């Protein structure tokens, strides 16, 4: 089959690789119909996530048709399903308390040591990401093997086309959980750093959850425009002093909750961020956390900090004092996708949530490398790339 494979920093290619096979009883094989490039794929593309190996098939936002099932799979051939990017067994302690992204059984035993060393505990497995998270082949391919297919995939009714539901795999639940982790109350002012896909969905979610005001922070005009259309007020951090603006916009109190939808490759021109960038570039592993640091300073005393943005290592000059002295609550984590797929599918079906506005480009899978390049370099206009294995080159938008 054809698949997008990683070969090194800024080097991804569509190669021919062997088709996947059913290995375990609960497996299923999907024929991919739509798959997307995620902002966190760009962390792999930029080579800042450890444990990615040449030849790895990327992609953790995908959906498709069931073409083969193991004997204990509950799926049926021909069903259309969206697959959560987190792989969860459904049977362990964490899955039972719905902390799916902390599943104890999905990351193969021999691969758990690396993340256990880094983080103190092993991580659950993710599709198409690092070998720290299992090294499972991803879905930017014609076919994918889906383990624990009786737990993760959600069956999609025929009348909902791919583009309406594809983002249930990651960014919609991730934005939603980002807002949920901010514990939004009706009179709250909420600030969201980053108007990429997760930030935009977090804005949308915060508004649905009843925030009285949502303020979006970015520097790409088109992305700020999208945030505005969703109902947010916007701040361009290139032209405006963010914390001062937030203080004014919240009546001198500070915003009640902040959401960092930027993560480890944050832009920023403060000295510490530049230092972090140098360290990250030379592999010393300091995450650039300018957005998070700014968010912690901007949130009101006793406020909430939610971190859906991805971090993988350490960071320097962390405002620990502000965190403690202001009595902040912090919630973070990979998304417990399986917790949200059904309720969010319902919201898509009844029209409360529409995610299609985000898609700027549809490309054939064969053209995926160009998708990566432009999604990274033209962030203002390439807001979201959907790849379709069947699409012919000339039909590409």
């Amino acid at each position, binding site marked *: 089959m054809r698949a997008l494979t990683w070969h090194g920093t800024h080097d991804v290619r569509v190669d021919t690789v*062997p088709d996947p096979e059913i*290995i*375990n*009883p609960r497996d299923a094989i999907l024929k991919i119909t739509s798959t997307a490039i995620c902002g966190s794929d760009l962390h792999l593309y930029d080579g800042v996530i450890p444990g990615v190996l040449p030849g790895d*098939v990327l992609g953790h936002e995908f959906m498709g048709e069931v073409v083969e099932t193991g004997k204990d799979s509950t799926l049926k051939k021909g069903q259309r399903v969206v697959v959560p990017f987190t792989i969860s067994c459904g049977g362990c302690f964490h899955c039972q308390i719905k902390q799916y992204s902390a599943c104890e059984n*999905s990351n193969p*035993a021999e691969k*758990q*040591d690396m993340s256990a060393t880094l983080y103190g505990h092993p991580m659950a497995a993710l599709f198409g990401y690092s070998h720290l998270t299992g090294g499972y082949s991803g879905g930017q391919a014609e076919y994918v093997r889906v383990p624990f297919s009786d737990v993760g995939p959600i069956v999609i009714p025929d009348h909902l086309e791919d583009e309406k539901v594809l983002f249930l795999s990651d960014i919609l639940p991730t934005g939603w959980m980002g807002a949920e982790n901010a514990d939004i109350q009706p009179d709250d002012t909420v600030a969201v750093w980053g108007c990429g896909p997760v930030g935009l969905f977090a804005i949308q979610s915060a508004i649905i959850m009843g925030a009285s005001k949502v303020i979006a922070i970015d520097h790409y005009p088109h992305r700020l425009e999208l945030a505005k259309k969703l109902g947010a007020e916007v701040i361009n951090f290139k032209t405006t002093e963010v914390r001062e603006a937030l203080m004014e916009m919240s009546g001198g109190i500070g915003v009640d909750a902040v959401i960092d939808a930027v993560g480890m490759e944050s832009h920023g021109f403060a000295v510490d961020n530049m230092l972090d960038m140098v360290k990250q570039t030379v592999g010393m592993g300091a995450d650039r956390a300018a957005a998070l640091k700014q968010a912690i300073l901007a949130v009101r005393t006793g406020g909430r900090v939610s971190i859906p943005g991805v971090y993988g290592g350490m960071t320097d000059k962390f405002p620990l004092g502000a965190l403690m002295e202001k009595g902040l609550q912090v919630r973070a984590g990979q998304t417990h996708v399986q917790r949200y797929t059904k309720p969010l599918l319902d919201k898509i079906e009844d029209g409360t949530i529409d995610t299609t506005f985000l898609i700027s480009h549809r490309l054939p899978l064969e053209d995926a490398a160009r998708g990566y390049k432009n999604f990274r370099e033209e962030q203002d206009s390439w807001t979201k790339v959907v790849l379709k294995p069947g699409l012919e080159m000339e039909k590409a938008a």
Partner: protein
Amino acid sequence: MKNNREISMAGSVAAAGVALGALAFGAFLSRRHDGGSDDAPKNARRKNHGEHALVGRTVTIRKPAAELYAYWRDFGNLPEFMENVERITEEGGTKGRANWTIKAPAGTTVDLTTEVTDDVENNRIAWASVEGSDIETTGEVTFTEAPGDRGTRVSLRIEYDAPGGAIGRGIAKAFLREPEVQARHDLKRFKMLMETGEIATSAHRKSETRKAKQQENG
């Protein structure tokens, strides 16, 4: 450049290499440490021991003790999750004799016969090698109730008499069969098998699974 001296050195410790098979099925002891002054279990690593000897592992499995005990008591099941144990055949009888064939580095195997030395239903199984085995070993697994509905705490401890000692472990490390790591992985695979009915693999095709590769390498 690999020179002949290295190779002959490897040859000279071949006798010790026999012990390596034992490393394959769990956690081991060559020197029991005296425990600390706190409540951490005996098998927890102490900082003042440069080369910790007793390694054992505990996992919590969301299944009743009876179910886990029953699976383990059937020794023929153990190779399902103990990666380097090729097979175990039970002779039966009152002493629960079983013959183990364990993979050792460089395509060799180690054979031993064990007898069950203690058997408390749903709670504890202990075994020891009998004379005539390639290595001397004892092991025990205990099943105790975890709080609330968290299932059962399963602790595995395997001790062995290690001719070669540190050298043996050194070689084991070179062959990626470090016993502590092996014990941890084996127990995690046991947990996976019990909680999910299968052992997680990120292999893309059957030929890429660790099992298939192992059979290939003999």
